[in-house]
């Protein structure tokens, strides 16, 4: 990476204390995103994708908390800020798009109310100016007749249009970084591509870094520059999209890609068939590599030691198979240095 990243996450651990023990939905996660870059984060539900996004924007529901690790935005730590400081970052420097546009907008306020309130909070504009900017923001996301539609309520928009409004809200204060959490899952297949393209275009124009959380490999293949694959709270593989999608290194990524049809149809049921077993519950994560009970290529080291991210082509994969001398490891089980 040539320039310094917009977002830099290092060894992030999120813990949720419960009556039956401390859960770790996010465990030692590290990644960077550069300006104008789209990082796709994929994995099954419960893999920790959304929780990672929540941790970055500081919205983990109590009693969950960031237990260790760092989140840096353009070099400055943001994971240990006071709530009032973090609030000034949310919406202003990091925008977020949620899964269900129906549920993300307050049904009792017009889209104009919600846009203006966001703009006023972050840019300190007067009402009339905020309204002008709100109309411009709606036009930018492709809402026809924005000056009239601004006074409509969310229920008066279609699903796709609503998600455009949500994107306008997330980008209203020109953030450096956008987290999109399953932005297309709740939409009709026919509008999914448009919404993803819109998000990508707007972020590219502004040079914003994008963290695109999804379980839809089709969306990733079309949109992302790099991909992080998550499993049971850890990043198991991260690298350029061509390589991770086209020639995955981690057996879990292999299963995930192999199970995804080329069109972005309903792949969920098929995918689960392709990888035997199910992702472990957070209370019973297996020892060593969390994937080893389901892994077709597991060997005896796998259940003893959790693999670090190892170089594999231009990607990194957390799998002992990527160790240059894994044959040797089979016998000696010594821990090699992780290759940075």
């Amino acid at each position, binding site marked *: 990476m040539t320039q310094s990243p917009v977002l830099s996450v290092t060894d992030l651990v999120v813990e949720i204390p419960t009556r039956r023990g401390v859960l770790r939905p996010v465990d030692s996660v590290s990644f960077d995103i550069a300006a104008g870059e789209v990082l796709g984060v994929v994995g099954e539900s419960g893999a920790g994708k959304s929780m990672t996004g929540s941790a970055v924007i500081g919205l983990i529901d109590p009693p969950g908390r960031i237990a260790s690790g760092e989140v840096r935005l353009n070099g400055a730590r943001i994971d240990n800020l006071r709530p009032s400081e973090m*609030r000034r970052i*949310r*919406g202003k420097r990091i*925008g977020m798009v949620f*899964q269900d546009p129906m549920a993300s907008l307050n049904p009792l306020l017009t889209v104009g109310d919600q846009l203006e309130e966001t703009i006023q909070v972050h840019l300190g504009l007067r009402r009339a100016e905020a309204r002008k900017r709100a109309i411009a923001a709606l036009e930018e996301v492709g809402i026809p007749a924005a000056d009239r539609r601004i006074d409509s*309520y969310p229920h008066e928009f279609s699903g796709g249009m609503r998600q455009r409004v949500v994107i306008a809200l997330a980008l209203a204060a020109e953030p450096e970084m956008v987290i999109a959490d399953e932005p297309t899952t709740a939409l009709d297949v026919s509008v999914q591509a448009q919404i993803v393209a819109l998000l990508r275009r707007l972020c590219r124009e502004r040079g914003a870094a994008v963290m695109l959380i999804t379980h839809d490999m089709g969306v990733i293949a079309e949109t992302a520059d790099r991909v992080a694959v998550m499993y049971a709270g850890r990043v198991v593989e991260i690298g350029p999209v061509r390589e991770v999608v086209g020639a995955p290194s981690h057996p879990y990524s292999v299963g995930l890609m192999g199970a995804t049809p080329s069109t972005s149809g309903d792949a969920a049921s098929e995918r689960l068939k392709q990888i035997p077993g199910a992702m472990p519950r957070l209370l019973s994560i297996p020892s060593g590599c969390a994937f080893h009970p389901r892994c077709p290529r597991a060997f005896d080291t796998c259940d003893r030691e959790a693999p670090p991210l190892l170089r594999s082509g231009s990607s990194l994969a957390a799998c002992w198979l990527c160790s240059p001398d894994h044959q040797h490891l089979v016998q000696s089980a010594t821990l090699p240095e992780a290759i940075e």
Partner: protein
Amino acid sequence: MLAFVIRRVLQALGVLLVVGFISFCMFQFMGDPVEGLLGQEATEEQRRELIERLGLEDPIPVQFVRFVGNAVQGDFGLSYRLARPVSELILERLPATLELAFVSAIIAMALGIVLGVFTAINRSGFAANFIMTASLIGVSLPTFLIGILLIYVFSVQLGWLPSFGRGETVEFFGWRSNLGSWDGLRSILLPAITLGLYQMTLIMRLVRAEMLEVLRQDYIRFARARGLSERAVNFGHALKNTLVPVVTVTGLQLGSIIAFAIVTESVFQWPGVGFLFIRSVEFVDVPVMAAYLLLIGALFVVINLIVDLLYFVIDPRLRSDRAGSH
């Protein structure tokens, strides 16, 4: 929207007609109105004349139409017990009841919403838990016991507040009000708290439950993600959405407040219509009972209607046929 309003109004009229018919039946079949009005010593001639004058021998439908006609004009005949026109008795006492109900409703709503929001936002705090437990006991207490308890503490023991009656009242445009003098305000305090307490606990629990539900919604998360302050999120977004169902229930509670005023008025000997009604039940004063039934019926129907329409104003989703879906 117009169709909705018309339908609701027609339904309301239907309910009123049913209530009217019930109160007509009370007139018709309970006791002997002639005896009620003239006493047992009346002569046969007087009786004949009264039966003639009241039209008691006309066919029932004719009598019902006449009854409705009279009721619309506010004519409910004479009270058996007090031998005065019922409408006069009710009009005399209505301001006292309405004022009591109004002050109670304000207390119940203000405290109920504030405490509900407080207990929802500080869900696991000690104060919130204490308030919730106390409210559970409050719900089990009969209203009249609360009134007696308040009288005992604030009138008998402390001697701070009067224990019965309206005290000094000030007349505004023919409306005798408690709210115009210090003595009047002191007098209305205990009855209003007694009457409002139960409704307050209901509103508080409802606001809390609704608010907790709303705070779980995605748009609250999204509002936080947009960097809005906790205050803007809690009060600008969450509270507004909480208030939709709360308005309905609170509106409907207003009817209950007026009905429960019967109990409170008896405890504090408050000279309102409820007190009048309970005496009329005790003495089987049919015209007063029937008129009270109609009055309460009309009040309830009107309140329900207003609540329905208010719901409509608050929630834009119900108005969508006006805005037109695109």
